[in-house]
């Protein structure tokens, strides 16, 4: 019924009065809840709208959860610019905006719209702040890495780096990281034991039959009503945002029409030959390094494969010849089909990296194998994780091996030094 109503509205050309509604809905959906007025001001490129939009874009692009510390405006601006570039944002005008964040509200509005037009932004933003009531798996690596690199650009409180840095400090930090991980793993083991107990003891308490038991948060809600109230409030707020999002969906076309006018108000860009901001130039080849690295890895692999395949084939042909064997056509066909199937699965494995428990999964303890509703089984997830780990391990070892070779060569060239690598090499 919703669809029909929307059509009707559209036919009525309800542009004028529907636009504020659309913008209001969008605003309610976005993380910093910008004032709808900001959008109108941005259309006319008024500077007072700029700070709010920089902040909004920063949150949209880089901040996992609102509320935590935000870097000072200059850093925000740089981060937003570089993030947009990385996403392939086409307008060079953006890069030329001043770093103090005082200008460019219209450009920013365009950028935001460009992101929205990509389609998945809102969904992503909503999931990011989704209130979880179930028990989760700990974070997956994508999330963690994202975090680590996002921190990268923040002005890190470095030790006095003007004198350079003692390598022993790097080693110290590496070791610390290792211990922290071990601690974390150990803590999670305990958490698992406790969760499992809670799940077991509350079996049958959940109104949702497919879940069966309560999660820790739900149990806590019964223990501590005040916290439960908070949870409830957050859920209600999320519901509000979801409703706003649905509303936005409904009114979206009006917004795009309006955006056409915004775009039209822009002066035409000549060509993009603007100078690159200096902060990017120093390390611009790092991306290529990654490319080079993968190329090297693949080339090495290809050569190894070639050698192995050739050797095997020669050996096999020799064997066949000596023993006077011959493959029948069905044998050939069956074999080829088998191999093909196998390789296709392999290709699938990397193209859809994992039927892995990405993101929010509610942990459900279920002792009987038959469950209504279905879900991902722990054993399957473990299997997937195992193969993923094997992959990562193989790469890590390969890289370590490469380093070892190179360093052994370097060490060997040192005069009057006996180099004793650690045990196990």
């Amino acid at each position, binding site marked *: 019924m919703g669809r029909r109503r929307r059509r009707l509205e559209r036919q009525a050309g309800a542009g004028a009065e529907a636009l504020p509604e659309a913008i209001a809905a969008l605003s309610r959906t976005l993380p910093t809840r910008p004032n709808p007025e900001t959008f109108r001001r941005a259309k006319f490129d008024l500077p007072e709208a700029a700070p709010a939009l920089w902040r909004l874009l920063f949150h949209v692009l880089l901040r996992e959860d609102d509320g935590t510390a935000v870097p000072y405006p200059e850093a925000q601006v740089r981060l937003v610019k570089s993030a947009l570039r990385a996403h392939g944002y086409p307008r060079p005008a953006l890069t030329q905006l001043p770093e103090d964040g005082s200008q460019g509200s219209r450009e920013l509005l365009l950028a935001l719209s460009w992101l929205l037009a990509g389609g998945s932004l809102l969904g992503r933003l909503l999931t990011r702040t989704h209130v979880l009531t179930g028990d989760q798996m700990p974070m997956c690596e994508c999330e963690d890495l994202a975090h680590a690199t996002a921190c990268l650009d923040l002005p890190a409180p470095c*030790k006095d780096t003007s004198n350079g840095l*003692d390598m*022993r*400090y790097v*080693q*110290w*930090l*590496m*070791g*610390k990281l*290792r*211990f*922290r991980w*071990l*601690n974390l*793993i*150990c*803590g999670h*083991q*305990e958490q698992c*034991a*406790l969760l499992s107990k809670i799940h077991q003891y509350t079996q049958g308490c959940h109104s949702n039959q497919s879940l069966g038991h309560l999660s820790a948060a739900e149990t806590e809600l019964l223990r501590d009503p005040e916290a439960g109230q908070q949870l409830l409030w957050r859920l209600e707020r999320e519901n509000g945002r979801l409703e706003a999002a649905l509303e936005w969906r409904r009114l979206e076309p009006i917004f795009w029409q309006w955006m056409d006018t915004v775009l039209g108000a822009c002066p035409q860009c000549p060509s993009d030959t603007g100078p690159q901001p200096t902060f990017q130039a120093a390390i611009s080849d790092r991306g290529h390094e990654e490319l080079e690295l993968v190329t090297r890895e693949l080339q090495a692999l290809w050569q190894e494969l070639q050698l192995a395949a050739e050797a095997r084939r020669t050996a096999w042909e020799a064997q066949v010849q000596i023993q006077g064997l011959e493959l029948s056509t069905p044998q050939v066909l069956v074999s080829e089909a088998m191999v093909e199937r196998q390789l296709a699965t392999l290709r699938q494995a990397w193209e859809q990296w994992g039927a892995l428990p990405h993101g929010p999964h509610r942990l459900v303890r279920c002792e009987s194998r038959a469950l209504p509703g279905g879900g991902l089984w722990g054993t399957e997830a473990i299997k997937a994780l195992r193969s993923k780990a094997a992959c990562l391990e193989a790469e890590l070892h390969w890289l370590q091996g490469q380093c070892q070779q190179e360093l052994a060569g370097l060490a060997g060239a040192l005069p009057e030094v006996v180099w*004793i690598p*650690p*045990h196990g090499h």
Partner: protein
Amino acid sequence: MSILTVQLGQCGNQIGFEVFDALFSDSYCSPGLCSKKENEAYQASCKERFFSEEGNGDLVARAVLVDMEPKVINQTLLKASQAGRWKYSQHACFCQKQGSGNNWAYGYSVHGPRHEESIMNLIQKEVEKCDSLSGFSIIMSMAGGTGSGLGTFITQKLQDQFPKSLKMNQVVWPYGTGEVVVQNYNSILTLSHLYRSSDALLVHDNDAIHKICEKRMNIRQISFSDINQVLAHQLGSMFQPTYSAEGSFHYRRSPLGDLMEILVPHPEFKMLGVRSIPQMSESSLAYSTFTWAGLLKHLRQMLISNAKMEEGINWHVRPPVSGLPTLGKTPCNKELHFNTSIANLVILRGKDVQSADLGGFKDPALYTSWLAPADAFNAWKTQRAFNKYEKSATLVSNSQFLVKPLDLIVGKAWNMFASKAYIHQYTKFGIEEEDFLDSFSLLEQVISSYCNL
């Protein structure tokens, strides 16, 4: 989080008993000088770490007892059951009939592989009793054969089987004047191998503890039990619960992991020493009062002058003037006067603990040039008093403490090695000269690295 103790050999088993007894009596028999509620939380935290509970409420030490001959284990079990306060698990003992004969190679290459499966099974069973295992505390002597050789082997296997759990070896350093003739060989083999498989080596020096018994505890005829009690006191003051953060009143969840993260992240610096203050006999304790300022002043001087107890501290040692760090720090001087630290942890327990001023430990001159005090210094606190001491402080330090003793041991072993004495006893069991050389070079590197802080 729990810590599983593995007691190895005569020394390890005797000490292990005293440690559990000290932990128990501090938790349950000592006044604590704090509110009932806090005391209960403290007990619960200690229990979770070191004891499991049987159905009938008896406390069972989280420990595995290993020795290659039965006498000591029988004696240890007997002692625990006679005291009747806590007990060892009935099925957590492993012993054989014949010891390792002070031969590291025998413990490592013969007993180790032969009994690997049974011992690891025992350990696995104990591990499964923990909701979460923080790591292992492996108590062993360095001089003998079973503790040192088998202990090293077991540590390696623990590293293989539980790579995600931490391993801290409580290493008992032999008397300098000798208690086993081949102690220096056994020691270098132990240390070098542990350096590869363990996360931290907490060294307990027999000579130092002996002196504490003599000078501080006023014991006339010092027995091993006296020595082990002092050692257990120090370990207890390290591992009993402390608050998880400044201003927090929750007890720390994972002392072992936190301690390692603070003190031993660098692979070349894994050796720790522990100092406690005050230490005295109960009779003198009754007539003494302490202030935090006084205790910490002494403790700091003990640190920088490398004194093992509060008596006979050299008060003339001063930190090098900052700005001229190279003077006192770099040369590999065998008569090091100033003891440079990599990282220190001070643990304070008792009354008014929040008021203690730790500024003296935050002087950058105390530390190596590449770590700032913010990285290198940490303090843990609790206002619950430890073991009848109204106030007490313990210092766990990764510093040049051990350079000199290590250098001595390596030097002595090298002298013996150069004359090829006793080597045949080791090659008999597959430890070749090459292995000795490996151990020597690794330890020389460690010495050199510690010297060049």
